[in-house]
């Protein structure tokens, strides 16, 4: 279990880091951006392992992901965007999009609606996660994490 989590963390870090480079993140922020995404994924992964639903796991993971991005922003003196955009990718329902279209073509309405609903729920969970984390006042984060 611990080994799986470590492997998942490292792979998530590599994948998110690669996406950070694709989006032209500044060189100095590659590692922090990759770390942000990996934390988001690992929260999602562990929550799922403990039998939570996709939607709830996604909500909590996005919340932590956004929170970490906002904590890193004053620390690294960089906009939140730099950490949040690459970091969100592991949680975007890419698999949902694929399976929805697959069952659409397969002419399997039951699975199609189930997967489609899943995709929308995950997207909605991401939205809520970001919103909850954004609702924490900026002044509070700055007070705690400003490097001086």
């Amino acid at each position, binding site marked *: 279990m611990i080994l799986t989590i470590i492997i*998942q963390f490292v*792979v*998530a870090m*590599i*994948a*998110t880091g*690669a*996406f*950070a*480079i*694709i*989006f*032209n*993140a*500044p060189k100095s*922020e590659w590692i922090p951006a990759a770390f942000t995404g990996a934390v988001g*994924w690992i929260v999602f992964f562990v929550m799922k392992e403990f039998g939570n639903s996709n939607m709830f796991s996604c909500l909590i993971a996005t919340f932590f992901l956004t929170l970490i991005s906002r904590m890193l922003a004053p620390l690294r*003196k*960089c*906009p939140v*965007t*730099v950490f*949040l*955009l*690459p970091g*969100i*990718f*592991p949680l*975007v*329902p*890419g*698999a949902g*999009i*694929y*399976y*929805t*279209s*697959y069952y*659409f*073509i*397969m002419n399997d309405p039951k699975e199609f609606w189930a997967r489609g609903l899943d*995709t929308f729920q995950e*997207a909605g969970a*991401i*939205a809520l996660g*970001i*919103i909850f984390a*954004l609702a924490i006042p900026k002044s509070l984060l700055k007070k705690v994490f400003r490097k001086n």
Partner: protein
Amino acid sequence: MNSNFINSSIERTQFEPTNPTEAPTAKNVLTLAVEMGDLLLRNGGEIYRVEDTILHVLEAYGMENYDVYVLSNGIFASANEDRNDSCSIVRHVPLGSVNLDKIAAINQLSREIAQNKIPVKEAWDRFLEIKEMKMHPQMLMNLCGGIGSAGFCYLFGGSVLDSLIAFFIGIPLAFFLAYMSSKKTSKFIMHILGSAYVTLLSLLVMYLSAPVHYDKIIIGCIMQMVPGIALSTSIRDLFNGDYLSGAIHLLDAVLTAMCIAVGVGFMIAIYYFATGVMP
């Protein structure tokens, strides 16, 4: 509208040479502010940040009665409204690709303008430097496309072999996406063709009876196209009360997802007609 014209905004709004000891003219300040906002918006900044940056720059250089309204593809700004040198700029900003490097640099510049009030000319030179900042080399980006696809393939339950194949399918995909974006082709076509290509190769690998999970390979590769950026930008715009811009990005996200689904579905249907069995 001619795309050349849109991109040549620098040539269009010439910066008037001024004596550094004099107070900056409204036109110069507004040009600087709007150009900075334009660059932010073009490279994926959210509306609130763009408005905030423009307002900070205008305020730092002592403009009066200024106002700014930003949409996800346009900027409207004016300064010194009730004075002789009143000035306004309207700018069309097409939805572009993301460049976090430029966002971070503009952020830094705007912070310095607000804190140290550096001369307008110097700020303008710094801005030009940021605008001309190089992308990472294309080869590195392609490689990262492959690495990202392989990583996500593994995370979504693929085996090591699946990831390896996703890596080799992902590199040309990254190249293709970059090429299509640079040619300013329709994003619909780009995503449909991209996901069709991914599905075709994955099915081909499976057809050659390799022991792979073709669905995981497809999922890993389409992660390069999924609308993660549009989705999170949209939510942040909505959160800040910029409903129109949020809706534009949300529509962008939904349409992108649909295009990916169309590309994948199309190829699976073709496979079915060609072989007579569902993959």
